[in-house]
């Protein structure tokens, strides 16, 4: 390529989103030039393609790939090529505005266009073979084919029984967190400094004594805490966000009705009285129905993709030019 190092670095910068010149890097990649209408031609994973991918990976990981890893890589290259080939066979590369736009941008960037007419730009892009070589166009096609393959026909939508069985299988994922409602008395670390622990201990003694203030006035034994003295139905996450981990742990473990503490937070010490505890529990099926459906469809989509790739390998004559590959 002979690019100066700074240009190379710039290629990795995200700022110039539409000026990616990756096309140039791939323009002479022979494996990229698999033609429209040639779907019965064998899918050839050329030796230099494999070596090129290996060099890139080894450059990034700083070590040589093992033979087993090379097999994985070849599998991936075959899958990608099959998806690409099938996408073109189905015409997914035609009439796509994203692809046209991308091709026009590439031609503009190369500075070889004589005018800015979109049709002319597209023609030029096709003449230059950019539709075959541009990595973004290739990625759009592979992704479209991959997602199309994963889409289930309407008659295969999950049934009620299947959703319920999926729920049984994955219910723990949807466990509802334990919650507490509490009030607290706050002792500010910043203002009390040395007497902090002692002040909190004294207030606790008073709260447990006969002349304890009424619950709504308990906060007066401590310092102002502008966010408030009562927290309603908070989960561990919510307590951690507002007070920190130590406080959350202590509040969830506290015995309801009794004043406990002092409990440390990021802000000082607290005396805590839990008013209500709600234990963790599993949700009703209806509460998570749409999540279940989306996740089950995703799970099945993955299986459909694997099946489709197996079928494509049979349909196309796959040839791998590498000693590490044993066909079949």
């Amino acid at each position, binding site marked *: 390529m002979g690019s100066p190092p700074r240009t190379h670095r*710039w290629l990795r910068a995200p700022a110039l989103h539409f000026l990616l010149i990756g096309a140039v890097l791939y323009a002479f990649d022979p494996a990229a030039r698999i033609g429209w209408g040639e779907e019965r031609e064998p899918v050839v994973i050329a030796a230099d393609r494999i070596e090129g991918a290996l060099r890139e990976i080894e450059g990034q990981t700083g070590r040589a790939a093992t033979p087993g890893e090379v097999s994985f890589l070849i599998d991936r290259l075959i899958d990608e090529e099959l998806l690409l080939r099938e996408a073109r066979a189905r*015409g997914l590369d035609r009439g796509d505005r994203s*692809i046209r736009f991308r091709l026009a941008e590439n031609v503009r960037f190369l500075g070889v266009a004589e005018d800015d007419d979109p049709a002319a730009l597209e023609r030029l892009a096709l003449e230059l073979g950019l539709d075959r070589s541009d990595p973004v166009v290739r990625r759009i096609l592979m992704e479209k084919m991959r997602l199309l393959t994963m*889409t289930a026909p309407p008659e295969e939508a999950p049934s009620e029984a299947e959703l319920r069985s999926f729920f049984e299988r994955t219910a723990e994922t949807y466990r509802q967190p334990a919650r507490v409602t509490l009030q607290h008395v706050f002792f500010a670390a910043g203002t009390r400094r040395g007497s902090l622990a002692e002040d909190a201990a004294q207030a606790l003694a008073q709260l447990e004594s006969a002349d304890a203030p009424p619950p709504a006035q308990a906060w007066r034994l401590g310092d102002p805490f502008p966010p408030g003295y009562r927290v309603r139905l908070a989960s561990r996450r919510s307590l951690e966000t507002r007070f920190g981990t130590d406080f959350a742990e202590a509040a969830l473990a506290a015995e309801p009705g009794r004043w406990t503490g002092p409990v440390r937070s990021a802000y000082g010490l607290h005396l805590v009285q839990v008013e209500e505890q709600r234990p963790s529990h599993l949700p009703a099926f209806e509460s998570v129905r749409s999540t279940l459906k989306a996740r089950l469809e995703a799970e099945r989509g993955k299986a459909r993709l694997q099946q489709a790739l197996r079928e494509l390998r049979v349909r196309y004559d796959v040839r791998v030019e590498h000693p590490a590959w044993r066909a079949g």
Partner: protein
Amino acid sequence: MSEREATGTRSRRHAARATLALASLALVLTAQSCPEETGLPFERTELRDDCEEFNRLRNPYFGETHAHTGYSFDAIVNGTRTEPRDAYAFARGEPLGLPPFDAAGNPGRVAELRRPLDFAIVTDHAETFGEVDICTNPELQLPGFDSDECERMRGAIGTAVPNAGDATGATAFFGLLYGFILDPQHIESICGVDGEDCRQRASLVWRATQAQAEEFYDRSAACSFTTFVGYEWTATPYVANLHRNVIFRNARVPDLPTSYVEATVVEDLWQALEQDCLAEIEGCDVLTIPHNSNVSLGWMFAPESRVLPDPPAPIFPPPPPSLPLTAEAAAQRAALEPLVEITQHKGDSECAPGILSNDEQCGYEKLSRLDLRNTIPVSRFPSLPFGPLAFVRNALKEGLVQEERLGVNPFQLGLIGSTDTHNGTPGAVREDDYTGLGHLGTADATPAFQLTPLPIGGVEANPGGLAVVWAEENSRDALFEAMRRREVYGTSGTRPIVRFFGGFGYSSDLCQLPDFVEHADRDGVPMGGVLTPADAAVPEPGGPAEKPRFAALALMDPGAPGAPGTPLQRIQIVKGWLDANGDTQEQVFDVAGNPLNGANVDLATCEPQGSGFELLCSVWEDAAFDPDQRAFYYARVLENPTCRWSTRLCNELQVDCSDPASVPSEYTTCCDGSVPKTIQERAWTSPIWYRPDG
């Protein structure tokens, strides 16, 4: 103006009443009982459980509005292999493998959040989503397949729909369509060039984006995690970044996203959203969030319509000239664009030293110290200036100027932070692990890449920030309405809890009251709100006008196990106003804490030194208030100094700047005095505006 423009809590209650009927209707549909309250203060537009954690006075939810996955072309070319579901799982606390991947596909690095997020939005670049014809893909199960247009198209071809799995049939079909067999003019006469008029389209990537948002949206009463369907509109004319994230309120979204391919100026994007979402789909609602105005060359907030920046000559064709901003255009902008990213991976956009600001805190995470020309390897681009309107504070001031002229403020923007990660790692904001993870796949995976002097992706990049939303519960409707009313704030990545209220008649001991929030909320407006003279007591004849007071409360980030938060240094209030001459002014006030608290950090070990504040609360009165002058006020909360990520990295690499000959050439920025050694993590609240004309 709409209710969202109206002022004060009175109008908020009014709006709540107006939506009560709908909300009640929705409640009937939900599976569980309603909260303690008699109704919801927001409109429920979707089917889901009410949240157990419902809080009328709002909870802070920490999240991410801007994350890319492998569906973005600039992520995939850097080795990122994530899908939105991976990003959402990561946001919920699951580990995620990052490139480089070895030949067997095992990741070279693993990222994991120490603290999960409450919400996240994946916003991939829509320009390369790609499309498919509905008419030819029956397996998509879209209603369009049976439409008249599709029938016409298939009829025109005169062939049966090919078997989806039969490549030969499909090829023949497309061969026909493109005129390989039939006379092309015949097709063209019926369906237009390329069959365009007969075509109905869908984007598989867009559908997958929606499905995966659904996979991770918690509709149960736990309300543990919220996703939104979104994408990025990626306009970069002549390298001016005019990007917007487009966020939809619920699962009802247009069939296709409007990308830069379809809309090359933002007004066309907004018009498409008005048409495709607001007008055509019952229950659809949307907002846009601009980002990186710092690299917009000053065009992001130009007070004009249909802006296309000046091209570097010669380039063709010359762009059409922009139009003067009208009241109608300003109102469209104000309605659809309530927020802006004030900070993210590619720099801070609040303000810049010397660009209409002399605030010493404006130097934070600026890309401007290096010449942007360095990013552009094409000599025909001239020097690129940072226009004043590249910065949000100046845009807020310009908004006052335009409001005076048009009666509408086009730049009434609430403030959030984001990462803009291209790793699929929403919320990965820590300075101390950015050095291992970066945000750009393999492009910033090594110390040498991270320390390059380039502004973007190099030493001037940063881990980015977070968006915090004050909402009654963690659901799409509650979060969306809070974003729309701008009750949000941005942080540089840490998690301080910040409230900001403005009102007339707050007592000076508000911070000592047991029900601070209740009072502040009832007698004023929260961050994002608007005050008018109607909120003040009527002055006695000849007497002085009542002055507004602002209540700011900040609690330090409580931290995580093994990673305590950093104490606060101070709270500032930034005021911008339009003076009697029609000129914009700004001033920064320290209202709590102590800028001279002496706290610092040991640069060799990055250990903090000195103490700060766990909790700050203050009621500040604007003594210079003039009831005839437009103004805005926002709070900025500063933490004590900590090591910048690059300082940590240079320490790790044991770079010795006292011996320049020993410093490897790829690490020279470690010893570059223009790269700050420390930062003060911070939070910016949305402003509160004062509008004299009500």
